[in-house]
């Protein structure tokens, strides 16, 4: 628990959070009329957010004095003593926390929903993790907005030609440009992502979780006229729903047992002497929450949507599907770290391990440059999950932050290549180094960073994860797989990243048309590349790395620090396999001493297995999609054969009855009415004859009638008449 400070720094962060929302509203209201100004509005909003959050971070570091000072001596000692074992580490870490003031936390909230016992507040929480994440998200997003301004430029021309929206051979589709719409979605995404980062309760996180999902859906399907993009957007959305169903279960368990959604309150109740949520239910709650993270962070077995999501524009892939949104799952695991029981952490670690190996192996054979990067993203997210799962809270999140920088850089670089060459297929590229030197050099920095070469950021963060995994293996020798998988994965990563670089930028041009067409991108696109290359190099510097220090400074999360020797050993092992991977890549794709095609011929089964992405799509097709289709076909037949027939029969019966009823109405009812009318008419016609209109005749009638009456009375007699009258 931290110190509660005056809430004005929180207001600062709230302002930074709301700026992109304001931009979204302005862009939606103005729509197409903004033209290119729309891009400047979105860029200005997110850059404003970045500047505010940078000031906020500086303020935070200033207030938590010593954040960037060298680690205090007694802390160091405690960490080293804790390295002997996690059992020993816990009390030591606790002692360290007590010896120092608690971590600085800024929080503020206001009531929102109050129904019975349910009380939900709009709350904001700024601590080490959210301040760092906020800074990273706004930094990467600002650069990607700037890049998008160049990349999406053709959306400004009217009309836009889209040859991929129609079957090959037909004239391209003509449509109106969607420049402003793109930036409005991007702004909405930034707002949602930042809200997710600074929310102080899991309910708000879930809301923004769904909002970023919607933005992802809208942006994957940005070229929705292309059938592949529409399908990919649906796939991403539906796959995420599967994970979110698990997350809702987790929310329900938390609510029914603890009665709160607030992170701090949940932590307090879990650490209480007699917690209401323990044992198997706690594990289930953790795994259920993690299921949501599996969907969002594209972990095995819900990873299938992320490679398809590359149908979206490349800046979207960089921002949403590499740097920020897919990292939200990792972020949530880090934020909710106290919830996970050892069993749940083991599940997380194994999920991450399987994911990183599987995705890396598929990336070996992909030829689409963006798909290689997509599988690499899945693989790196697996690293982060594995790091968190084996107890490396700081290592996993450290890798998240460095990965955001170099993966955004790699995606933007690939976007620059696609922009310059007009193709995404690496077999058509080659020798582009001379044509686009800035892109090539910045991408080389990204490749070196992700491969884990010393002095580049990825080395330090990946090394932290591998060290943590090695430490975990030493503690629990039965989980050797959790150490082997990341080490093998490191070699695979180095191999396929250098394969990507060699195939794209070196060698002889394989497609001369593409080569002639290739050109360096405009400054608006390469400036972000350079700006991202700098943190990709230096983000791991510091002893200990300053990002790791910013994350862990005075944080009460139980941190099991591996012994110093483990770090060095893990670093050497990792470096060894990385160098091996790079050497193999050089042999295959630079020196051409070995042939990849020959390898594919040698192991056709394996090659096909990888080309078909471990047959996950086929599996889901057979197990899920096909049965659903069969079931719906059966339902359709039932609908047409039984329900429709019933409805038709009922309709026919009603028509028959109505027809008979109409006849009855016409003949019987109307007939009776007409007969009465006819009678009345006939009688009236007869009576009419008496009305001659001759006065003298009337008088005669009168006289005759009177005489008749008199005669009648006479015949009846006086008594008869009076009796007649009285009755």
């Amino acid at each position, binding site marked *: 628990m931290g110190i509660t400070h005056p809430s004005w720094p929180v207001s600062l962060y709230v302002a930074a959070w709301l700026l992109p929302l304001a931009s979204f509203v302005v862009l939606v209201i103005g729509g197409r009329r903004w033209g290119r100004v729309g891009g400047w509005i979105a860029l200005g909003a997110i850059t404003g957010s970045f500047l505010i959050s940078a000031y906020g971070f500086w303020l935070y570091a200033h207030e938590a004095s010593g954040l960037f000072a060298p680690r205090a001596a007694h802390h160091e000692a405690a960490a080293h003593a804790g390295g002997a074992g996690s059992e020993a580490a816990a009390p030591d870490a606790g002692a360290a926390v007590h010896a120092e003031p608690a971590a600085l936390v800024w929080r503020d909230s206001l009531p929102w929903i109050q129904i019975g016992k349910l009380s939900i507040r709009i709350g904001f929480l700024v601590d080490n993790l959210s301040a760092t994440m906020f800074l990273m998200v706004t930094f990467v997003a600002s650069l990607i907005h700037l890049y998008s301004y160049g990349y999406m430029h053709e959306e400004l021309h009217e009309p836009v030609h889209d040859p991929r929206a129609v079957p090959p051979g037909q004239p391209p589709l003509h449509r109106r440009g969607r420049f402003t719409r793109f930036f409005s979605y991007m702004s909405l995404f930034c707002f949602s992502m930042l809200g997710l980062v600074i929310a102080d309760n899991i309910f708000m996180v879930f809301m923004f979780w769904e909002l970023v999902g919607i933005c992802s859906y809208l942006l994957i399907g940005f070229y929705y006229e292309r059938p592949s993009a529409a399908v990919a957007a649906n796939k991403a959305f539906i796959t995420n729903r599967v994970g979110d169903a698990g997350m809702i279960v987790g929310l329900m368990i938390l609510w029914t047992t603890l009665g709160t959604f607030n992170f701090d309150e949940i932590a307090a109740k879990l650490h209480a002497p007699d917690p209401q949520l323990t044992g198997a239910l706690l594990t289930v709650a953790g795994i259920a929450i993690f299921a949501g993270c599996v969907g969002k962070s594209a972990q095995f077995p819900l990873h299938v949507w992320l490679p398809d999501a590359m149908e979206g524009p490349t800046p979207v892939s960089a921002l949403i599907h590499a740097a920020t949104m897919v990292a939200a799952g990792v972020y949530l695991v880090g934020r909710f770290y106290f919830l996970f029981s050892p069993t749940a952490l083991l599940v997380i670690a194994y999920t991450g391990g399987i994911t990183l190996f599987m995705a890396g192996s598929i990336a070996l054979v992909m030829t689409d440059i963006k798909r290689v990067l997509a599988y690499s993203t899945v693989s790196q997210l697996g690293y982060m999950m594995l790091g968190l799962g084996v107890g490396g809270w700081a290592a996993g999140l450290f890798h998240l932050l460095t990965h955001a920088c170099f993966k955004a850089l790699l995606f933007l670089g690939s976007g620059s290549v696609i922009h310059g060459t007009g193709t995404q297929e690496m077999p058509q590229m080659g020798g582009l180094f001379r044509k686009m030197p800035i892109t090539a050099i910045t991408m080389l920095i990204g490749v070196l960073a992700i491969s884990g070469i010393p002095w580049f950021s990825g080395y330090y963060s990946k090394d932290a994860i591998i060290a943590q995994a090695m430490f975990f293996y030493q503690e629990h020798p039965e989980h050797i797989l959790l150490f082997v998988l990341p080490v093998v994965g490191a070699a695979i990563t180095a191999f396929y990243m250098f394969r990507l670089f060699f195939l794209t930028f070196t060698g002889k041009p394989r497609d001369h048309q593409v080569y002639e067409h290739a050109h360096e991108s405009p400054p608006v696109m390469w400036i972000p590349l350079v700006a991202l290359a700098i943190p990709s190099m230096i983000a791991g510097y510091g002893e200990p790395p300053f990002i790791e220090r910013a994350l862990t400074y005075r944080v009460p999360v139980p941190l099991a620090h591996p012994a110093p020797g483990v770090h060095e050993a893990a670093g050497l092992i990792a470096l060894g396999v990385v160098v091996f991977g790079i050497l193999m890549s050089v042999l295959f794709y630079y020196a051409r001493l070995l042939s990849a095609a020959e390898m594919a011929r040698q192991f056709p089964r394996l090659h096909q297995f990888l080309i078909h992405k471990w047959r996950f799509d086929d599996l889901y097709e057979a197990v899920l999609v096909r049965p659903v289709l069969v079931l719906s076909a059966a339902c359709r037949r039932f609908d047409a054969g039984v329900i429709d027939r019933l409805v038709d029969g009922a309709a026919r019966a009603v028509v028959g009855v109505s027809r008979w009823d109409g006849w009855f109405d016409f003949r019987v009812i109307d007939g009776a009415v007409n007969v009465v009318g006819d009678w009345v008419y006939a009688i009236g016609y007869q009576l009419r004859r008496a*009305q*001659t*209109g*001759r006065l*003298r005749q009337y*008088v005669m009638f009168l006289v005759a009638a009177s005489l008749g009456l008199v005669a009648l009375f006479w015949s009846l007699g006086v008594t008869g008449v009076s009796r007649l009258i009285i009755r």
Partner: protein
Amino acid sequence: MQHPVASLPTILLIAAIMFVCGAVCMATKRNAVGILIGAELVLNASNLNFVAFAYLTPFGIDGQVFALFGIVLPAAEAAIALAIILNFYNNHMTVDVDRATELKD
């Protein structure tokens, strides 16, 4: 009580003759004014009957009151009838009731 000037049957006889005269007049005359005169004869015959029977009633006055009504109402009736006849004359230049057949069909 004074002895009556004429006996009841005598008066009834006179009234009956008047009534028949009036009725025959109404039945035979084609002139509207003539019919009106016949109607007056019939009404006055009935007035005569009212007066003749009046002395049989307890106060000897009921019949006389009826007779007064029988004089006043035909006066009003005659005014209306004459107005109708005048209008008819204005429109058709005749007072022959047999010519008044327009409402028949």
